[in-house]
C-alpha cells in the first residue's frame, strides 16, 4: 500500500472548489448530495506513479480537470479512478496534456461502476497536444461496468496543432508564435469555461498564465 498524501472529504450537501498544483497520491470522498470542482495544474512531474481515487456517494457530482504542461524531461505517471458507489452520481474527468521537449505522460484512467451505482453518468476524456517529436504519450482510458442503468463514455485524442488552423491565423496576419499561442490558449480554455464561479475561473487562468 502506498501512503496517501492527502485525503479530502466533501461533506453532505456541500459544494467545493479546489485547485491543486503538485502531482501526488490523493483520495477524495464525495458525501451524499455534494459537489466538487477540482482542477489540477501540473508543471512538474514525479518519479513514481501517483494515484487519484474518487469515491462518489448518492447524488454527488464531480468535475475534474487536469492540465499538464510538460517541459524538459518531466515525467507524469498517474492514474485516476472514479468509483461510482452510490446512485445517481455524475463524474466528468477531463485531462489535457500539452507536451514539449522530452516530456512524457503515462496515464491510466478508470471508471468503475459496480452494481450499486445505478443511474450514474460518467465520462473520461484525455486530449493531448504534442509539440515535440521527442515527447511521448501513453494513455489507457478504461471502463469497468457491471450495471446496465448507466451512461458511460470515454474518449482520447492525440495530435499536433492543426495545420489548417495555423494557416488560417497566419493568413490573417499573426506570426507563427502568436498563432500557436492563440490555439494553445483555446485548447486549454475550452474546458475551463465550464466552471460557473467567476472567481474560480479567474484563479485558474492566473495559475496558467496563458
Amino acid at each position, binding site marked *: 500500500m502506498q501512503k496517501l498524501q492527502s485525503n479530502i472529504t466533501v461533506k453532505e450537501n456541500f459544494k467545493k472548489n479546489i485547485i491543486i498544483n503538485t502531482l501526488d497520491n490523493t483520495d477524495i470522498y464525495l458525501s451524499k448530495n455534494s459537489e466538487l470542482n477540482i482542477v489540477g495544474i501540473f508543471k512538474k512531474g514525479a518519479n513514481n506513479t501517483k494515484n487519484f481515487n474518487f469515491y462518489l456517494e448518492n447524488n454527488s457530482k464531480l468535475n475534474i480537470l487536469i492540465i499538464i504542461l510538460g517541459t524538459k524531461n518531466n515525467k507524469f505517471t498517474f492514474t485516476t479512478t472514479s468509483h461510482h458507489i452510490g446512485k445517481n452520481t455524475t463524474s466528468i474527468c477531463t485531462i489535457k496534456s500539452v507536451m514539449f521537449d522530452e516530456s512524457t505522460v503515462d496515464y491510466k484512467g478508470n471508471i468503475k461502476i459496480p*452494481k450499486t451505482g445505478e443511474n450514474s453518468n460518467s465520462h473520461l476524456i484525455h486530449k*493531448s497536444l*504534442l*509539440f*515535440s*517529436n521527442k*515527447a*511521448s*504519450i*501513453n*494513455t*489507457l*482510458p*478504461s*471502463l*469497468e*461496468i*457491471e*450495471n*446496465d*442503468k*448507466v*451512461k*458511460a*463514455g*470515454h*474518449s*482520447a*485524442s*492525440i*495530435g*499536433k496543432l492543426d495545420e489548417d488552423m495555423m494557416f488560417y491565423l497566419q493568413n490573417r496576419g499573426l506570426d507563427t508564435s502568436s498563432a500557436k499561442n492563440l490555439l494553445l490558449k483555446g485548447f486549454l480554455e475550452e474546458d475551463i469555461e465550464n466552471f460557473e464561479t467567476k472567481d474560480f475561473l479567474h484563479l485558474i487562468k492566473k495559475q496558467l498564465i496563458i
Partner: protein
Amino acid sequence: MTVSRHTKRLINTTFGDYKFGFKSAVNNYFVSHKHLDDTLVKEISDQKKEPSWMTDFRLKSLDIFNRKSLPAWGGNLSRINFNTLHYYIKPQDSTKTVWNKVDPNIKEAFDTLGIREAEKEFLGGLGAQFDSEVVYKSVQDALKEKGVIFDSTDNALREHPEFFKEYFGKIVPANDNKFAALNSAVWSGGTFIYVPKGVHIDLPLQSYFRMNTENMGQFERTLIIADEGSSVHYIEGCTAPIYSSNSLHAAVVEIVAKKNAKVKYTTLQDWAHNIYNLVTKRAFVYENGEMIWVDCNMGSQLTMKYPAIYLLGEGAKGEVHSLAVASKNQHQDAGAKIIHGAPNTSSLVSSKSISKEGGRSSYRGLVKVNKGAKNIKSKISCDALILDDISRSDTYPLMKIDEENVLVAHEAKVSKIGEEELFYLMSRGISEQEASSMIVNGFAEPIIKHLPMEYAIELNRLLELEMTGAVG
C-alpha cells in the same frame, strides 16, 4: 433506463440456442497420448513426415511453452489442464480433393453445417478441418492455373518449403506468448494461401474448422502470403459439439501483405460454450498494402483474441471490425492491436459488443506509434450494449504515442438502447417491432456490412425473421 424488452428478445433469438452442438461418430485414424512432452511432439512430427528443422522448431517451442507463465490479465485460464487434452487426432488418412472421398461420417457433419452448398454457390476454394487434420481442400481450376496455392499447411510444408523457411514463425514468433509457443510445438492443420503477383481472387476462399472429440486441443496454423499487387478474401468458420469438459482452441495466424496487396480475413467464431479460444493473429503490411480483419465472436467460453496489424511500409492501411456477443458463462475478451511502424500509415478500429444473461465482454486494444512514423492517422471506436444488470462490459484501450505528427482519436460508449431511441422512431410512425429491429440492426450493421454478401444477407434475414416471430 434499460434496454427494451423487444430488443432483448430479438438479440436472444438471434444469438440464442447453440445450433451446431451435434456429435459425429468417427473411427479415428490415429490418436496421440495426452501427456504433453518431447515424445508427443516428436510423434506428431513423425506422423507428418516433417523435415528435421520443423521437428527442432517444435521442440524449441515446447521448451518456451514450459518456461512461460499464463497471462495474468484477461480471462480466467486457471482451469485449463494441459495434461488432459488430446493434442493430435487424425480422423482420416490424408487430405482429399474430391468431396466424395471424405469419410462418410465426417462428410455428414459438414453437410449438416451446409458447408458444401456454400462452396458450390460462392466460394473460390474450400477447406475443411476435422479435429487435427484438414480432411478436404479444393480450389477452382482457374485459380490453380494462375498459380494460386490454397492447401493445408501440412501439405504446403512438404510441397513448398521455400515459403516456410522465409515466413513461418517470423510474424508470430514462438516466444510471443504461451499459447503461440504451444501452437508452435503441436500445430497441425490450418490453411496455407499464396497469391502470386498481381492476381486478384474475386470469390472468397473459406476454411471450416470443426472440433468433434471431447477434451480436444485444436492447434491449426495458418499462413497467408499475398504477393505484390494481389488481393484475397479468406473466411473461416468454426463450431463444435457441446461437452461438459473443456476443450482448447489455440490457433496461430500469420499474414504477409506485400506492396499494394490487399488481404481481408473474416472470422465467424461460433464455438460451443465449453471451449477456450486463445488465438494469436497477426499481419505484416508493407508499402501501400491493406489488411482488414472482420472478427465476429459469438461462441466459446472464453475468447482472448486481439487481431494485430503491423503497418511496416509507407502508405499501408489497416482496419479491424469486430462484433462480440457474450451470454451466460461467456467472456469475450477481444480487441485489436495496431502498430504504426512507417510514415503515412492509417488505421481504423470499430468494435461492437453485446453482453447479456451475465456475460462479460471486454475490449482490449493497443495503438502504438513508433518513433519516426510521421503523419499517422488512427481512429478507434467501440460501443457496448448491456442488456441486464447481471452482465458486464469493460473497455481497455491503450495508446502509446512516440511521435509528434499524429492524429489519434478514440471514443467509446456503453449504451442502453431503449426508451429514447424507441420513442424517437415511434413518434415518426414506426411500429415498436420495426423500431427495435432498426436499432439492433443499426448497431450491428457497420460490422455486418463487411461480411461477404451471402453471410450478410443471411444474418440480416435472421434478424428480421426472428423479429416477426418474437413479438407476441
